């Protein structure tokens, strides 16, 4: 993916993030996630239906990378089964950590494939994934 296209995707999702809206619907599993080293602080609200992730919303304050990464993750993840979601998460994490991964299933999330060059922003890109993993763990409990 060329650098300009990556930037465009990230800015698009930053300026118009998907489902960045709070909810007090009690059917949603709510988790908070933040980065110890910086000031990003986001809430995720996940609606499960059996094995399916039916909806995800988020709110809070975070930088361009965290916000866009959340928006892209949500776009990709709604409608997936938990198992599919986990495969997607593993691939995304592998990409960020410069390990082997399958880029085919990441779609727009491939825009972060060179974020490893900015070490201090890796955690920003990973933040929503930390959140969704927490939500899945909570749901399973």
């Amino acid at each position: 993916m060329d650098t300009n296209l990556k930037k465009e995707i990230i800015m698009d999702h930053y300026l118009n993030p998907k489902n960045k809206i709070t909810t007090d619907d009690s059917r949603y599993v709510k988790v908070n996630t933040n980065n110890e080293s910086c000031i990003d602080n986001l809430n995720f609200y996940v609606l499960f239906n059996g094995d399916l992730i039916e909806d995800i919303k988020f709110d809070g304050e975070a930088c361009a990378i965290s916000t866009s990464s959340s928006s892209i993750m949500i776009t990709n993840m709604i409608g997936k089964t938990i198992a599919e979601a986990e495969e997607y998460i593993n691939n995304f994490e592998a990409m960020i950590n410069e390990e082997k991964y399958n880029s085919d299933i990441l779609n727009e999330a491939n825009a972060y494939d060179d974020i490893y060059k900015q070490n201090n922003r890796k955690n920003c890109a990973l933040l929503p994934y930390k959140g969704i993993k927490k939500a899945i763990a909570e749901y399973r409990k």
Partner: protein
Amino acid sequence: MNREDFPMLKQDIIYLDNSATTLKPDCVLNKMAEYYKEYGANAHRGDYDISYKVDLEYENVRDLVRDLINAKSKEEVVFTSGTTESLNMIVNGFFESLLEAGDEIILSTSEHASNILPWFRIARNNGCIIKYVNLDDNYYVTLENLKKVITPNTKVISLAHITNVIGDVRPIKEIAKFAHENNIFVVVDGAQSVPHMKVDVQDLDIDFLAFSAHKMLGPTGVGVLYGKKELLEHLEPTILGGGMNESFDNENAVILKSLPTRLEAGTPNIAGVIGFGAAIKYMNQIGYDRIIDRERYLRNYLIEKLVRIPHIDIINLESDSGIVAFNVNGIFSQDVAYYLNKYNVCVRAGNHCAKILKNAVGVTNSIRVSISFYNTESEIDDLVELLKNKDKIMKEML
């Protein structure tokens, strides 16, 4: 001014995070190296020449600090690892045994975590009540607002002299006068004030003061706890060990040394303390007045340029220190900091460890520029130039 004294400034960076920590001049670094290379023995063990020299150098710094803050005696100057440790010692060693259920502790919402969390724990353990003085429209603490939260149960007021978020100076002298008329103790967090103004503990008549060497050109890991002698006598050592006891035969017969040694258990940060002495001498040489004038001048220089940029929201137009907090309208502060970093400009983004201030100011995060006397007009020009064009920030912040 004096830029040639700072080796860090030979790098291609614009360092504007001086409230977090300052850069160190050569004289401080050399003094620390001198200790390690020429008389690197332990302190308080004057059985041989170089060890005696350590004691002389170490205690000499205590004199320098005594003069710096105008303490009545050296015994009132205790070396610690920093403001945080000093505040914890004050809270846990002095107030822990003094405060009872229902006693009230007054803080402000713009305190640093180190002047909040130790009090939170005591409040929890002892059943005390924490109250916050209301900030005025400029986020300042006034004596008037302070009086409103004081009750017959108020036992202690603990405030930063200058806050690290917006750099306002608190009217500590008036506060202390009023507090003492009402039998209330006054603790002052001097982390941001001692480096930037003359702090005279007798003139202010405060009971305790805490500050750090690393924010005033000295090394990290050194700080000071000042306390009035009659109060320090009652401060229980929170750390016990070598160097602070006279003798011990059994658990009921431990005799502690006198002040301040009793509060400095274990081998201290000798190199750090000696380096701190060099920093104080260096600042004295330049002169506090010149340092303050220069920092105020540079701050105004920056403010005058920033106010002309429409997309910049300045949080503290007025301030007595070198701190300017602002936001670029519509851009998260951390993104702006990352953008500036690409041009080697070091600023801080965040809530600056004052997590409960956001409720008062209504802004969760901001960019903080903190100026020191060694910064220059041209560095500020560069910063302003980088902030002028919002599209450029948006384009390059990723």
